[in-house]
């Protein structure tokens, strides 16, 4: 992939006509997308639009049905030998995945390990880093996400926001070139969303390449270099966050954004109403 060099160098992720079918249902219908080093790209779109599926294809949680995806110039899932495509072996796929960090909607921390053990696990057993060294690095990462003093807690003893921050530290411990976030704040109580977004914002500022599936419009506007709006398995519109979010060109984007704003307003009104119903007096300490 060195034939043409754009100002930002070759793309870290390049998808050409990515197609994914589950049985006879086509979930992704030809996605073209390039993500360059240091770029933060937010994938937006209604549920069922295929944005999570696309993210999972990059990390081979799903197998591509058609098209090609390259990460750092290397074809994902298959390799070309003697003019034919060959499916990669498990070990090869594991090697490709090790360079990509992934953060899940439901955290998926290992419940039988402490926060520290979660972060240390992959560097020691996959990258064969010395345990003492991995431990030091893990503590540094936990410090980075503000959880150094929770290192010896089990996931069940942590709040959702804390668990997600440990999950980010765990992914970072493998020193990935690329971080994938699959709706990282969707499973969180509203008051815990902020702490996770703060960590993600810091990560973006440090120059990490990130692809983020999210419903947090303000995060997309403030942090993303580019937003990609998907619907029904295709990219409808992509571009500068301000442009796409403030004055979308495509009617489908506009309809989606209008709906999100309306829902947010309804939610706000409901909260306001409920607060009013509670009355002005301070609630009794139970």
């Amino acid at each position, binding site marked *: 992939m060195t034939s043409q060099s754009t100002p930002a160098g070759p793309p870290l992720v390049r998808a050409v006509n990515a197609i994914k079918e589950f049985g006879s249902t086509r979930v992704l219908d030809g996605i073209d997308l390039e993500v360059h080093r240091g770029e933060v790209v937010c994938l937006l779109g209604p549920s069922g639009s295929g944005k999570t599926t696309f993210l999972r294809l990059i990390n081979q949680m799903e197998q591509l049905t058609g098209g090609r995806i390259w990460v750092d110039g290397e074809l994902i899932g298959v390799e070309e030998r003697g003019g034919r495509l060959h499916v990669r072996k498990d070990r090869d796929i594991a090697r490709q995945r*090790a360079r990509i960090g992934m953060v899940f909607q*439901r955290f998926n921390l*290992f419940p039988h390990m402490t926060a520290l053990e979660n972060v240390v696990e992959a560097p020691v057993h996959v990258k064969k880093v010395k345990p003492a060294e991995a431990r030091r690095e893990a503590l540094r990462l936990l410090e980075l996400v503000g959880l150094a003093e*929770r290192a010896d807690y*089990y996931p069940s003893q942590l709040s959702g926001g804390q668990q997600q921050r440990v999950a980010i530290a765990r*992914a970072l411990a493998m020193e990935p070139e690329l971080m994938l976030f699959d709706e990282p704040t969707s499973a969180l109580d509203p008051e815990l969303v902020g702490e996770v977004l703060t960590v993600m914002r810091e990560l973006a500022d440090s120059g990490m390449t990130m692809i983020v599936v999210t419903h947090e419009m303000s995060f997309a506007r403030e942090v993303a270099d580019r937003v990609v709006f998907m619907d029904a398995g295709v990219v409808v519109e992509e571009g500068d966050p301000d442009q796409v979010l403030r004055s979308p060109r495509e009617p489908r984007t506009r309809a989606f954004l209008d709906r999100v704003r309306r829902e947010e307003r309804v939610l706000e009104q409901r909260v306001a109403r409920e607060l009013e119903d509670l009355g002005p007096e301070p609630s009794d300490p139970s």
Partner: protein
Amino acid sequence: MSEPDRARPPAGDAEERPGLIDAVPVRHPWRWVAVAVIAVLTAMLLNLLLTNPIYNWPFVFEAMVQEPVIRGLLIGTLGATVLGMVFGVLGGVLLAVMRLSANPVLRGVSWVYTWFFRAIPRYVLIVTMGVLGALFPEGVSLGVPFDWLIIDALGLSGDWRFVTLDAYAVFGGYFGAVLALASSEAAYMAEIARSGILSVDRGQVEAAQALGMSPGLAMRRIILPQAMRVIIPPTGNELISMLKDTSLLTGLPLTTELFFQMQSIGSRTFQTFPVLVGATLYYLALSSVLMVGQTWVERRFGRGISPSATPRRRTVVAPVASNGSGAQ
């Protein structure tokens, strides 16, 4: 607590709030009846145990410490239990992983194995193992399979067998005993291990894969440790069953075993009943020890999941003031 206590309105001062509850507890007369009945039954039992001469308690304890009995206890009963269980668990986990693999041949083999060995009563399997030697009149050998065909085809003579053992000695002895118990146990353990593996959340596999773990590593480090929580309680049952089933090894026949040795003392001395009491006491004691062990292992593998097994760890940097906020 929005309603004021109507039964005892605050005396005098209207602002006084209800204090500690000092209420008459519910009476349970039937509990006392049950206690009386059980006390009478216990007295009857004790009377039977201590005054009936047939028990012959001094003889019970004397029989229990005879050298052949101790040997049988250690070798046939405890030894075969441990070995049968170790190989049974290993085989069972292997069968479960095969059953869940993507390879249809491995899946099929695992299914057929489980189907076959679950169907055979353990006693029948042990007796069959004892006479399996009949199938191999020339003994069992370690060497190249179908060597005589290959040697014939190449026009050579002799054989390609490195060790040859008497088949009756192999299958009818201690090896056969452990083999019979382990192969039967593996079939049960396969189902237990499979349900354990399936109980682990799919997201755990994905998280392990996303970190670059190979399927084998993910199984060893992430899936099995979590599956253990589901696997251990039924395995404890299996272990106790195994302990008791070593008494079936008489059918092999393996005689260095607790029950056989106790019985043979009984038939030599005509003290049939006391020796059975002695055997019962041994089985009771061993089962109790195993139950304690199971509790310990359950706590070990419940870390992070069951609250009683999760230690509130010391913190690394400094204890924070709001320590209790994390648990939910």
